[in-house]
């Protein structure tokens, strides 16, 4: 399913906006395989980190190194936003859109769209306007639209925030399937339970800096910093 794996490395990465440093300096390596969860309170820099890795936001200092030419890597990445962005089109057209952009033949598009609509349970809503779906349906559609191009790396920015338990479970199932098919996943979340269920490794951010990172088992059983410990205990960390 997924072709060449991609590694991502940040070195001395700093992001400033209007003179204020909101991220970094940080050094991070994301190997080609894995399910990374970026944890941290609001304003920790999680979304900025994700956007930097995906290349939609620029670094003020430092570097992002990719294992393949930039353009090639970007084509094999996908991003799911916290608030799903729906094209003002039908469910079918939303699913087909990323494939149309890269010139996929129409019969292949039709086949994949039908397959993904079944996987997310929207097979009976194919001609409904996507912006009129419920929150959970929109997020599932956004995830399917991201996965339909079989990305090497999938970035997700709190995809289950404000979703109910059922929708969260369905989205987690889709993510685990994609991960087992070889997609490298990097996801931000507030939800410690979700982190425990999904993560193979964890990055803990606080005030734009990495306060802990490593395999999920080690992080959840014995965090190395007091801030990470407090966060796991449910304390308010600033």
């Amino acid at each position: 399913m997924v072709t060449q794996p991609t590694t991502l490395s940040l070195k001395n990465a700093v992001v400033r906006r209007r003179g204020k440093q909101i991220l970094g300096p940080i050094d991070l390596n994301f190997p080609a395989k894995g399910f990374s969860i970026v944890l941290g309170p609001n304003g920790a820099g999680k979304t900025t980190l994700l956007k930097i890795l995906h290349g939609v936001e620029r670094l003020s200092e430092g570097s992002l190194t990719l294992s393949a030419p930039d353009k090639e890597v970007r084509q094999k990445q996908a991003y799911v936003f916290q608030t799903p962005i729906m094209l003002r089109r039908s469910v079918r057209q939303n699913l087909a859109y990323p494939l149309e952009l890269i010139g996929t033949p129409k019969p292949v598009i039709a086949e994949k769209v039908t397959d993904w609509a079944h996987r997310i349970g929207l097979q009976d809503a194919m001609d409904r306007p996507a912006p009129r779906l419920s929150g959970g349906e929109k997020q599932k559609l956004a995830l399917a639209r991201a996965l339909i191009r079989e990305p090497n790396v999938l970035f997700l920015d709190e995809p289950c925030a404000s979703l109910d338990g059922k929708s969260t479970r369905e989205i987690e199932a889709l993510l685990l399937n994609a991960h087992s098919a070889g997609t490298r996943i990097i996801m931000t979340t507030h939800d410690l339970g979700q982190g425990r269920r999904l993560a193979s490794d964890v990055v803990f951010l606080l005030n734009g800096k990495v306060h802990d990172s490593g395999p999920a088992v080690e992080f959840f059983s014995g965090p190395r910093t007091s801030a990470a410990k407090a966060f796991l205990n449910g304390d308010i960390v600033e």
Partner: protein
Amino acid sequence: MNDIWAGIEAAFWLIVTLDGDLIDITLRSLQVSVTALVIASCIALPLGTWLAIRRFRYRRATIATLNALMGLPPVVVGLIVYLLLSRSGPFGVLGLLFTPTAMIIAQVIIITPLIASITHQAMRELWAEYHDLLISLNTTKRQRVATLIWDGRRTLLTASLAGFGRAIGEVGAIMIVGGNIDNATRVLTTAIALETGKGDFALALGLGFVLIALALAVNFAIHALSRTEQEGRW
């Protein structure tokens, strides 16, 4: 009040008897305004969309100029086009003055800024909504413009209809560059001006009612064809 009733009556008989002159003038009005609208839309829709998504040095000044050009006085446009197309002007050799082509050129100049400006406003909002998604999908600039135009087509239709409304009702510029020549460049608005000048208010009003009916019919037809008011359609 008598004049209005006489106008309604005149309009009724002109339509019922399929008056040859009326049909000729009406078709010419449509030909000039629809051609101008198509040409102006081909320029203004991509231009307005491009301005919404592209950042460049004099962008604000360009948008401000475009907005200011919406208020171009048609008489001045007509005068400038007249000077350009007159025998001593730079395009005099083309022999376009006092032809429907000259009228189309003047109308294109008048309605392009209007359509481009409304398009820019609509596309700016849509671009704000789509920005992150289209960037994350690694789309090219051409793909972004195409996506915005397609998904914003209903708003763009409104922009085009505003352009059509201005074109079909325009009189100053086309009077100057067309000359209001019978069977050649006479259209509904210039015919109304002529009949008013002659004191034939009933016929002038009759033509006016036909003009209003025509503008409404085109708007209804376009809305019906594009099914803008149907539920559940995109």
